[in-house]
């Protein structure tokens, strides 16, 4: 961002100041409230799903995360497939993007969209368009963090 500022001419800077007056500002507070409510609700549903698995399928609090996440992704497949998730997303913003259902939606929506290009090149080749960066940075940062921690433990620092 800083390097872009350097290359702007005075004319460009003047225009951008003028343009910003007319720019419809994002309703940040309203968006945050909507994100809070929808995100909280999704987690609430996740909690209910967890208890369901604990009581009926004998999962423990330690390992119930797995089936819970899988179930939530299944729900997001239905919502995405029936054309509902994009409307929820426009309303809730991060409230529907941050939960794991948002991750599922990003993969599933890409898969559904690119079916017209075939299953191998279309679906397979495009499925991770949006989710790829999450997987990449998740894995890599986990690698770095775990490596650092393990080394520190090995060297007796921790």
């Amino acid at each position, binding site marked *: 961002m800083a390097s872009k500022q350097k290359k702007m001419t005075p004319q460009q800077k003047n225009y951008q100041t003028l343009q910003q007056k007319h720019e419809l500002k*994002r309703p*940040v507070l309203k968006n*945050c409230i909507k*994100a*809070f*409510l929808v*995100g*909280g609700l*999704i*987690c*609430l549903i*996740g*909690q*209910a*799903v967890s208890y369901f698995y604990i009581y009926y399928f004998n999962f423990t*609090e330690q390992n119930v*995360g*797995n089936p*819970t*996440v*899988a179930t939530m*992704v299944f729900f997001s*497949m239905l919502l995405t497939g*029936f*054309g509902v998730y994009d409307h929820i997303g426009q309303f809730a*913003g*991060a*409230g529907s*993007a*941050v*939960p*794991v*259902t*948002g*991750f*599922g939606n990003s*993969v*599933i*929506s890409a*898969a*559904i969209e*690119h079916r017209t290009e075939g*299953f191998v090149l279309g*679906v397979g080749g495009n*499925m991770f368009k*949006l*989710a790829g*960066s*999450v997987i*990449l*940075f*998740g894995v890599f*940062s*986990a*690698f770095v*963090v*775990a490596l650092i*921690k*393990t080394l520190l433990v*090995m060297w007796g620092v921790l």
Partner: protein
Amino acid sequence: MLAMFFWAFVVGGLICVVGQLLFDVAKLTPGHTMSLLVVIGAVLDGLGLYEPLVDFAGAGATIPITSFGNSLVHGALQDAQAHGIIGVLTGMFQVTSSGISAAIIFGFIGALIFKPKG
């Protein structure tokens, strides 16, 4: 049990608010925001701060994407304890497989049965 529901709602909602602020104030794309949140989850688990949050808020901490980072670090550390440094590589997906596998499987099934609505 009721308390857990309450805190799941509140903590999950708050993590989403952080995401929304990254969208609206920092003007980050969803890709950037989710990647950042996953990294934060990983770092917090490295510092030993995420597991207590999971105990406290349940699904409020395991459903947001930050828990991905947490699970990946957890798996890596577990295996490292058992098998030494190589465990950092081998352990990562032990605990996290469900989220990604589910997304892949349901993504494919979705592509088989659904048509986008535009």
